């Protein structure tokens, strides 16, 4: 039972963080596509901005790993 709850917790930790990251990157990516179409020099900055929200899913991964490896 406890193992199952831990697995659910870990799944929620990374899943919700991934959803949040995807939501953020979708909006940044679509704005970035429009920006690059008008000013191609900004492609480097846009790649950077799209990659920034990934910190959320990384922290979610860290939380999930801690739950699974250190929990119980």
């Amino acid at each position: 039972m406890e193992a199952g709850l831990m697995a659910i917790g870990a799944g929620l930790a990374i899943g919700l963080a991934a959803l949040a990251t995807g939501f953020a990157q979708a909006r940044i990516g679509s704005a970035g596509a429009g920006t690059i179409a008008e000013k191609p020099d900004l492609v480097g900055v846009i790649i950077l901005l799209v990659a920034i929200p990934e910190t959320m899913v990384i922290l979610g991964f860290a939380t999930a790993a801690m739950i699974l490896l250190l929990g119980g």
Partner: protein
Amino acid sequence: MSQQMSHVQIIGLKTDLLATIRVLGALGCVHIDDVDAMPEFSLSRLTLDPAMARHADELNLRLLQVKGLIETLDISEDQRPAHANGEDSPERVLEAVDNLLPVVQGLAARRDRLVSESGLLPRFLSTMRKLLPLFLSTVREPDHVSFGVLVNRGQAEVLDIIAAQVDDVTGGRAETAIGPLDATTSAMLIAVPRAAADAIGAMLDRHDVSRLRLPPEFDSSSPEAAIASLSRRLEAIPAEIAALDRQLQEIAEQWSSRLRYCAAALQDELETYQVLPQLGQTETTFVLAGWVPARQMPALQAALESEIGERILVSTTPMTEELERRAPVALENPGVARPFESLVHLYSTPRYGELDPSRFMALFMPIFFGMMLGDIGYGALLLVFTLWMRRRFKRGIGRDLANILALGAGWAIIFGLLFGELFGTLGESVGLRPLLFDRADSDHVIDLMALAISVGAAHIALGLLLGLWEAIRQHNRHALMERGGRLVGLIALFLLVGVLVDLLPAGFMTPAIALLIVGTSLLAWSLGGTGVIVAPIEMIGLVGNVLSYLRIAAIGLSSVYLALVANEMAGIVGSVVVGVIIAVLLHALNLVLGAFSPTIQSLRLHYVEFFRNFYEGGGRLYAPYRSRLSPRE
């Protein structure tokens, strides 16, 4: 590292202006500044006189003609400077171009007509074969003209109306035949006396129906013979197109280098005129201000003296703070770091005198890439791919990317040995054992994460040390406090964590807290009024920056587990052949992801976590005015 630049001013007579610009183009070392960058002189902008403006327009027209020829003959772009063959001058080539132009245009127009015909004829023949049963004997009579009409099946009653109107107009001397063409279309053939052709044509136009234009063959022979004749024509077209292509190819081979040379020479001369408005002028002189690498200054002076003599003055201006802010940057790095310059420029060009991060990227980016990919098999395949890229791309961003990926692939092989990975867990079957630890083993996930965080902390600490060094060089106390505070805070955080996980004795707790308070205070002082509130938030942000390096572990694990899935799925399927195909496809997918994702993430770690501690950028790229022509051989 960036090259030392000298600010140069060239003052000469207007009669020597074009000769001077040509010398600068041949040398290719002067970055020309706009006259507005010389407020110390009250100069008006150099303008083209009417004769120069007319000449520039003529050059533009000739260039368009030559470029049109290059495009029509499908001559490929070559990034190398063009050179002349033998004694060719642009003027002689242009004379010959005047004769060549109508020939090539004629060949190209004939080719276009044939291609268009080969596209239309099959559809036309298919329609005519379906109309065969409708053909009327009167269609072949020389004094009769034929019309074809197509309508949707739903509007077939229009054909009856048209037939009645044709009868009225021709007084019953016309013949019509109506029949289905396919499931959605009905067709009508009309044969009318030649005298009534115009009236019938106008009537059909008013009805807004699709007209089928019958070719002359249908008027002079039987429909079957006409269709056979058109079919033979269709079969002959590819051979005619091929013959025209061969002619155009021969012309292209004969003219390729001359046309490229001519285009480059015309473009050069046009750019000469485009550069002129950047210069300043007085009544009889021109004034040019620009930048040249300090070590090329003697060559510039010698070249101008040799070509212009004593009528030109070349002088350098001592560097001031204002000039340093305007100076363009020419990066100079050893071969290994040179490909990373384009990645630095992608973020922001360094300011003159600022630390160039290219060498640090050259060291750390391949290491991060290797840590994430960490597989001997993937690294080897990627290395082979980069060798192909290096043969395909001799210069430019493709070549840079190949060199960067090659370094990353090398580190991927090294980390593959450390983690004991060959296409995931396949290495186990050939006796491969990890030298460090097995990433795929869940017992070592914490070790992997600790490794990633340690590397991240070291990387950020290096960035802060570089930032401190820059702050000291620039005598920037504010930056010194900020970066010093962050560095002290980082050390304190790691001491704290060390104590909490029992890696360090408990006695380190007090110094750790003290250091944290010192670091936060320094940071708060550097941030000014709101520093008391913002500084602790910035310290938490610093923790986030370190944890961001966990992506090295996360992406590495995803690569391992995808490889594991590829191997397991191959084993589950009953057939060896199908299993191998599945494994190859999944490993190929993993390789593509493994090349793309670690590159982007390593780049992101540098741009966000590393650069923010010491790098500002915002500089100008050194872009010297340069001729497109190489020296005559």
